[in-house]
């Protein structure tokens, strides 16, 4: 695996200090250290460290089927507004090269571009439930973290682990998202998630594990994210090959026009 590219070290330090401040304030405004932090405070802290304002990078997605057959996809990833708008452009393999997706408003608006027909078509938001290139990630799983606040009610529970908080997200009524419940185990040291368990019909259908966490421009960043599908007994690993945070994009970057370029 290639090492990720670390950029703008001074900004990193500034950003690290900002995040450190947030964590210190978060912890000290509560009378007893950590133990009685409310769910919303933990969620806010997690979202703060997890999703930089914007990012640009290159990622690799390895699908490992239950029969241990492997497929690797590589794509460029661009996001702004804490993941509210995302553009994904596949670079490998040849079969999907230059296929692109524009996901806006936290997955509510999705456009897909097919280079062979040079056609951009809007998909209904239910398409976010479909697998991304046959992987164990759905397009919904790429959506911004805002969905945790808008689509779910959050509560806190005992994780049974010394180093993590447990947040439980229960789907709000009349919200069209795939998972009725999500459990997020949050690292007490840096408020970065260790794993997310996804539930459908009270069954843990998928688990996303964050590993190889390094600090990049002040943000804890998992270089490897592994989605395990417990139903199909398959696994998809997402690896960051290159990542840069707080990128300035041109006004027309997250547009249908740019999909064609």
């Amino acid at each position, binding site marked *: 695996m290639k090492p990720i590219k670390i950029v703008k070290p001074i900004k990193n330090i500034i950003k690290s200090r900002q995040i450190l401040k947030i964590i210190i304030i978060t912890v000290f405004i509560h009378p007893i250290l950590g133990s009685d932090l409310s769910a919303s405070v933990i969620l806010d802290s997690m979202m703060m460290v997890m999703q930089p304002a914007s990012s640009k990078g290159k990622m690799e997605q390895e699908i490992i089927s239950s029969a241990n057959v492997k497929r690797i996809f590589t794509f460029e990833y661009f996001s702004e507004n804490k993941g509210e708008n995302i553009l994904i452009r596949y670079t490998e393999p040849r079969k999907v090269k230059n296929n692109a997706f524009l996901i806006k408003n936290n997955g509510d*608006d999705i456009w897909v571009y097919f280079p*062979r027909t040079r056609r951009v*078509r809007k998909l209904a938001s239910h398409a976010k439930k479909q697998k991304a290139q046959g992987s164990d990630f759905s397009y919904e799983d790429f959506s911004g973290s805002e969905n945790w606040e808008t689509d779910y009610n959050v509560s806190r529970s005992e994780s049974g682990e010394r180093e993590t908080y447990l947040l439980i997200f229960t789907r709000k009524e009349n919200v069209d998202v795939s998972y009725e419940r999500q459990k997020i185990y949050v690292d007490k040291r840096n408020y970065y998630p260790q794993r997310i368990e996804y539930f459908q019909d009270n069954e843990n259908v998928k688990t996303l594990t964050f590993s190889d966490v390094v600090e990049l421009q002040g943000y804890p960043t998992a270089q490897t994210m592994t989605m395990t599908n417990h139903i*199909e007994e398959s696994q998809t690993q997402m690896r960051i090959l290159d990542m840069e945070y707080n990128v300035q994009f041109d006004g*027309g970057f997250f547009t249908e*026009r740019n999909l064609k370029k």
Partner: protein
Amino acid sequence: MIWVIFLLPALTFAQLDIFGYYESENDYLQLQNADYNPGYNKLRLDFLSRSSDHVMIAGNINFQLRHGNRYFNFLEIIPFHISDHGREEFEQNNSVSLSDIMWGAINTIYLADTLFLDNIFLYSSFSKFDFTIGRQPLSLGTGYAWNPLDIFNRKELMDPTYEQTGINAIRLEIPLQDRTSMDAIMTPDSTWKKSAKMIQINMGIGSFDISLNGAYQHHLAPNTEIGYTYDQVYSAGGAFVGELWELGLWGETLWPLDIDDNFGEVVLGTDYTLNNGLYLMCEYFHNSSGAQVDSLNFGHYINYYSGVSHSLMQNYIFAMGMYNVTEFIVSSMAVFGNLDDNSYILAPQIDWEAFEDVTVGAWVSQSIGDEDTEFGIQNRAVRFRIRAYF
């Protein structure tokens, strides 16, 4: 054409991105009087060069070598009483008397090997507009199986998403404001009058993308006295795609502006993905220039199979369910049919990603309906296709 092959090594050194695929297809068709086993080997060679962020030159060459049955007799998919009537009309109009062999030969096409420059175009992106010139892919509209707005192409119902041949065109796309743009397309022909033109205003309203279209074409139009005739047709239409109550919704229409030309096409479709990933879609198509059951004649078949008309008759349906059986196997079941003569095709399909860049697909189709109906006559078919990308 050969010069392109000799140019390829030089183009490679010009930092050209070369890619494409090899495809092999083998079909078995059981029709009313005969079985067919056509097939082909195809090489699609794509090349793409970006000299800057604003300029792209792209194209592809297709080589297709056919095997198996290379002669296809259209009379096999036309009910006997209709083709017989067509033969009588032909003999009367041309004052000839044809033998069965000659009549069959007139209606038989030869599937030749092909080698052609499918697309070759220059795309330039300026700050205020994008400009594309050359033989290029044009794909208009929001429909899946039918596209009334796409006056440049015709789709095959068995495989509506298969790539279409490039169209020689000039295209200008002007972004006006956020989610609003203007798109003008012209396909040059021998005269200005014969050149098709399309202008569309695209806009986003809420969760919908909407387009308003105006088109001009030198097109075959129904004529009460002589059946059909070529005429200048100005049309207006539009398309939308979005969602309502969590259902995907789309529609598309194109109608002539001349009130005497009372014909047009409409598509309405909906889709939904269940939480388990099962994708369901359904599309309805109406073509008022299509034939009615009691007026169906040989000319309607010829117009449809030659691509002049988007359908044989007036009312159609296309429905499909698709599911990822495993990470690398997608199964789907399509049903499409003619609601006027109650004939349908049931087509299960499996697509397997055998390797990272190799896909294998198998289709089966079974007709439902009387023998003298549009789809009932196409008894059954099997298609096997393998494609390897490079």
